[in-house]
């Protein structure tokens, strides 16, 4: 079946959820087994696209993008995805993942650029993105009204330079301010960078908490985060200074408490090349995973006990999405593979291999 035909066929299936014949029932059962994963991908010849693909390797939708993209945000009530272009990014792509069609391309406001990540307000009304401002070095969180054609309605300060991933917890917005000032993709302030993890009051824009490491580690760029159900933040970092064996690369920060590093055994830490890619908390909220694509490792922790569980090797692996079961994760790689991983045992099961598909840094499970 060609991609187009398959897409149409699936479109029909999703339009008739209760269709009472066998084929539908079989397809539905298969769907339950293989969740849909969404990610930015690139091809060997440098074409960038959004990909929606079943975990077992069946492509449902592939949509070309104007540039390399980073996070894919799920707007579940509207069955939409917002694909954020990679920093310095200039557009967002809105996709209907039920109908499998592109809805809209949103250009960044003049003078600004996207940092690659987005989040939704509690009521789903506002899309929030980390962006650079033409006015000064400090990052911004820009609010767009989803109900009003994604019109920009508000802008607040992110509390630091180079904000990257952001997550909402209740009425609080948590922003990873990477600390790095850039011109294009060139880093221009590594000697003086001051990354921070900030908890902001969304309504007022006021900063409630700012977390930093000791000055010794001011070059640990706080970039990627995920949340547990009780608002603890799992943090993945990239160290920009002189390599050393004790640089913070993974951390946890619970509401109102200091940010503390998560243990990584010395032998593993030495292989990571001071670089972690994605952070992901599992469906139970107990287990955390962080990818290290330069060290080809996926690491796991019991977050309740802040205990290191182990790692498994995934070549060029970066994208992480939670699975259904406790401790279960999906991982994608730049060399075209998708795996199901188990935090408790560090078991690795390869479920897809298409070498020409370079899965980009982040992946999300649409279930």
């Amino acid at each position, binding site marked *: 079946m060609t991609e187009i035909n398959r897409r149409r066929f699936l479109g029909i299936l999703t339009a008739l959820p209760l269709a009472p014949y066998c084929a539908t029932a079989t397809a539905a059962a298969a769907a339950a087994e293989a969740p849909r994963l969404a990610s930015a991908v690139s091809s060997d010849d440098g074409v960038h696209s959004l990909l929606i693909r079943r975990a077992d390797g069946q492509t449902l939708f592939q949509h070309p993008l104007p540039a390399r993209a980073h996070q894919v945000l799920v707007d579940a009530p509207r069955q939409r995805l917002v694909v954020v272009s990679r920093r310095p990014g200039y557009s967002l792509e809105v996709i209907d993942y039920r109908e499998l069609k592109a809805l809209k391309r949103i250009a960044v406001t003049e003078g600004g650029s996207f940092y690659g990540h987005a989040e939704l307000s509690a009521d789903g009304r506002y899309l929030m993105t980390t962006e650079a401002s033409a006015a000064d070095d400090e990052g911004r969180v820009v609010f767009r009204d989803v109900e009003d054609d994604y019109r920009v309605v508000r802008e607040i300060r992110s509390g630091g330079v180079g904000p*990257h991933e952001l997550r909402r917890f209740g009425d609080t917005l948590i922003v990873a301010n990477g600390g790095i000032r850039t011109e294009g993709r060139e880093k221009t302030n590594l000697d003086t960078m001051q990354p921070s993890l900030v908890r902001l009051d969304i309504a007022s824009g006021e900063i409630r908490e700012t977390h930093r490491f000791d000055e010794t580690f001011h070059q640990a760029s706080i970039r990627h985060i995920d949340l547990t159900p009780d608002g603890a933040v799992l943090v993945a970092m990239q160290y920009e200074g002189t390599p050393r064996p004790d640089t913070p690369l993974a951390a946890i920060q619970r509401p109102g408490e200091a940010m503390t590093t998560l243990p990584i055994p010395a032998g593993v830490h030495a292989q990571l090349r001071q670089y972690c890619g994605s952070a992901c908390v599992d469906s139970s909220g107990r287990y955390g995973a962080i990818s290290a*694509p330069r060290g080809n490792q996926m690491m796991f922790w019991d977050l309740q006990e802040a205990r290191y569980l182990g790692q498994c090797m995934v070549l060029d692996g970066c994208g992480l999405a939670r699975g259904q079961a406790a401790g279960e994760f999906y991982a994608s790689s730049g060399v075209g593979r998708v795996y199901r991983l188990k935090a408790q045992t560090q078991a690795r099961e390869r479920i897809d291999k298409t070498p020409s598909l370079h899965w980009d840094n982040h992946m999300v499970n649409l279930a």
Partner: protein
Amino acid sequence: MNIAKQITRRVWWLPLVMSAGVLNAAPSDEAWSVWNEAAIDQHVIPRYQTLAEQSAAMQSAVAGYCKAPDADSLSGARDAYVEAMLAWQGIQHVNFGTVLYLMRDSAMQFWPDRKNVGRRQLRAALSYSGGAYDEEYFRDASISVKGFPALESLLFDEAIADKREKFPRYCELMTAIAGNIAQMTDSIAVQWDDARSQYTDAGHNTFFEEPADASAQILKSLVEPLEVLRDTKILRALDESAAESNWKRSESWRSGISVANLSANVAALEALYQGTKPLSVKGLLEAQDQTALAVAISDQFAQIRAHLKTIAEPQAGPLSEAQWQDLNALAGQIRDLNEQLDEAMLALGINLGFNSRDGD
């Protein structure tokens, strides 16, 4: 099991790889397994053994100078440094395996040192009053004082005799760093005994799912260093013009072997490309019906090697216009080789990485 036996054990299937039946398909698992074994046993491990031997010799020579400092013992120590450094240049491209343990890859040679961390740390080390420069000292020390650049700046200091007077622990530190290099290189070599099977048994262990996955890691060490050679080792010193250039930004200007380093690097990559038996990267390409590309890469290596022979080590400071043009042309040749090898990786179905090379 010795290497000859391992090769004999595998050699039966060789005609399969070379036969017309597999032309234009990616090399088989078996072919990659044989190549992995050849690359590790004939290239990686022997070069680390050479490095360990040269480093041990360097340690003795530096200790000898410190025991009886005179012109002869100094030149002996400096010569030994050059031999050990060139042995390191012959395996510096390998960015996998035991060199990564305990961050030895950075510790062996922290370079380029853009913020002059080494100079600061070395001064602190010279006035250190907390006991011997022993294993514990090096475990906690900055990586900038653990390896070759730190030793070079002590050993090749033009006023070394005055410095020994000025800093009572000068010689002690110099010997200790040489000893640390010897110890690290010995461990890197010895630990390959255990690490070897991760690569040679790829596809049958928990590290690599397929033999080609291990091959991709090894091949990264063939292709990716070319960018370092061009951008970091050459163009960084060249800057935008001869007037803005400064050979003090080259890798080993103090010891005067920055060009020799490049020759050692290119020779090492050439050996990894075509020096392994019974299979080489070149042979694998030819078996893919890519003979023209395979030969063009060999020719490019030969041309770069020949060009390097004609380049004399520049003096520290700005380059002449002729030197600048010559080195710039060399950088262009290396860029072309890089592109050819990228093409070769595509032809071999090898993906060197995406997220690991350019992520956010």
